[in-house]
């Protein structure tokens, strides 16, 4: 990894999984701290120096959601969750509690490292201002509120623009339906999920090459959306 050497706290009760995760991180140039319990994990994070937490949701001593809530009261560190594919409800709860991303078991080294890199990059650049974004053939100027595609300006409605801005601000991060509804429409619309579906669809038609197979505004089925530059 470029910049400084990152330190990742791996909270996972299965020693074999812990081992290969730490192995992969080591090859990527990350230092890793292993913790088999939630308590040990929190202690490791509290000791300082950590840049990222990888957390298995099924820990023996504490509910993963509680771990995240606990950690979020005193640390903004990015959290990557490891969970089973079918446990959408757990994922949503973890993301709403403050987790940044998730990875479904079983996963390969490649997938793991891609997520870790994205999260570390976000973490390190979190303080920087990003007035302009570019993805595919689309350019967004957040200062002038101008969106253009292939050089031609595209008209976005206010809500479409707000939705795009929230996604850009959380590049690479999974955003739950609930979170997006709250950010774009406000608390009164939390249960009106179909609004989000319609506006995401419109945004895709304006910005994606093939809206049926989007490359940037990705669907995380049953959970929410992820913007990928």
């Amino acid at each position, binding site marked *: 990894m470029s910049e400084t050497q990152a330190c990742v706290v791996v909270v996972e009760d*299965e020693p*074999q*999984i812990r*081992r*290969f*995760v730490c*192995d*992969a991180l080591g*090859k990527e140039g990350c230092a890793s701290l292993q913790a088999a319990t939630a308590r040990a994990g929190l202690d490791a994070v509290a000791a300082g120096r950590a840049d990222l937490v990888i957390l298995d949701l*099924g820990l023996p001593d504490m509910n993963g959601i509680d771990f995240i809530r606990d950690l979020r009261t005193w640390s903004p560190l990015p959290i990557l969750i490891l969970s*089973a*594919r*079918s446990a*959408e409800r757990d994922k949503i709860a973890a993301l709403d509690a403050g987790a940044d991303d998730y990875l479904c*078991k*079983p*996963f*390969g*080294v*490649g997938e*793991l490292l891609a997520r870790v890199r994205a999260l570390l990059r976000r973490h390190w650049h979190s303080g920087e201002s990003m007035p302009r974004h570019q993805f595919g053939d689309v350019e967004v100027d957040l200062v002038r509120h101008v969106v253009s595609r292939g050089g031609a300006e595209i008209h976005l*409605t*206010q*809500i479409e623009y707000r939705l795009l801005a929230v996604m850009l601000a959380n590049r690479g991060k999974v955003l739950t339906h609930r979170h997006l509804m709250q950010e774009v429409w406000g608390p009164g619309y939390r249960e*009106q*999920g*179909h*609004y989000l*579906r*319609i506006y*995401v*669809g419109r945004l895709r*038609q304006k910005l994606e090459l*093939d*809206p*049926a*197979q*989007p490359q940037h505004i*990705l*669907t*995380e*089925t*049953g959970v929410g959306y992820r913007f990928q530059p």
Partner: protein
Amino acid sequence: MGREAAGRGVSAVQAVPCARAMFTLFLLHIYDTRVICSGHGLAAMRTLLPSDRRGGRYLLAAALCVLTTLGAAPLRELLDLANIVMLFLLTVFVCAVRLGRGPAVMAAFFGVALFDFFFVPPQLSLAVADAQYLVTFAVMLAVGLITSHLAALLSERTEEAQAREQETRALYELARDLGGALAIAQVTDIARRFLGRLDMDVSLLIAEGGSEVFPFRQYGGRHLSELEQSFARSAYQRRSIVETDSLAGMGAAIVFLPLAAPAHVLGVLALAPQRDDVDELRQQRPLLEAVASLLAITLERLHYADAAQRGELQVAAERLRTSILSSLSHDLRTPLTTLVGLADTLVHRQPALPEGATETAGIIRDQARSMHHLLSNLLEMARLQAGNVTLNKEWQAFEEIVGSSTRLLATLLADRQLVIEVPRQLPLVCFDAVLLERVLCNLLENAVKYSPPGARIRLFARAGETALEVAVDNDGTGFPSDRIDQVFNLFARGEQEPAVAGTGLGLAICKAIIIAHGGTIVAENRPGGACVRFTLPLGTPPAVEEEVSA
């Protein structure tokens, strides 16, 4: 004196019809009350006394009147006649209280006669010297009759109240016994014991559906004849009591009471009196109705207790199944995750392993992944087959799961030619995105599995009139035409010899998910390949307020 007597005699003759009319009036009144009283089953039974004992009471009343006469005779010189009348009235009153109405009425008349004969001058004659004594007689008779009637009524009411109390206590005890009953057989026993005291044979018929002709299960009693069965059915269907005289005295059931609980009729109580007295049975109808309603309440309680217990069992079984599934899922997934991860670590090792070893590690990883896939399918099927899948339905765009499933299968689809024909303006559909994504993934995987590299795979969707129509087809050999109907069955495989890896779970899961959504799914062959079509019902999506500013 003789003229005077003759004059008084005329008056006496005139007084008699008057007294007779009064007496008739009383008899009518007495008859009325008797009719009213007879409505109370046990009470009425108790007030009816054997005729020989009744005769004894009349004799006793007469004896009391004679005794009064004997007692008053010596006092004739000391007392005023008006006071002697009082003694007779007292006797009538005592008769009314102790011996009942009939003897008291008799005592009133007999007393008047004795008083006239022994005390009113001329004594030892029924003739009356002074006409004013006729008034005395009339008043004496009237007072006697009224007091006797009132006193008798009072004692009758007391007896009746006692009888009713006994009846209530008996019903209360029945209710208490029924309250402790835990099974229908026990309820039958209790009912038989209670009604057996009234000499009745009891059959409890519990409705259980079954045959149209006799939809009951019988508890207790002997086998019912066809006629009795039809009466029982009629009582059950009409929710009303059926009584029949035609079978009386044949030992057959002649009263059929529906056991009606608030919600529904639970069955019929069939009663066969062991004696031929139909009237007696009729008198006891209020009691029988009370028994029937107590039985109905008890049976309904048993019914609900049974249902609650069954529900509890079901919940426990469901909980067990869920916990087994989740622990299975965790225990099998963990080693597979390790296997995939460690094998992948070997594949990406720097410096790289010898070529053969890297390839082997890659195969191990891929096999572990497909094993995981199989495991997921098995668990999903187990969950779906349990029959109570809770769909997490939301209004959403079908297009979204097209994108997410093709992204999930990107590697698999890489060497196929994927054609997606999904119109941009499809209406929102209400479905469970995770499950529908599973359907699309399974169909696309199948399409890949049964088509050669480079083949065309088409995913097509359009909005029909009432349903969204989706089809996935692929170039290839298609489904074997003789078994095309069975491809959705569990563990059915397309080809006889499983040359292609798979379990035959995929389409079965698709079918379960689509059916749960209220849609349909069919497999068919088209020229040059196979096609699976499914539909999802279209509803009315919730309204959307458009933005005001453009």
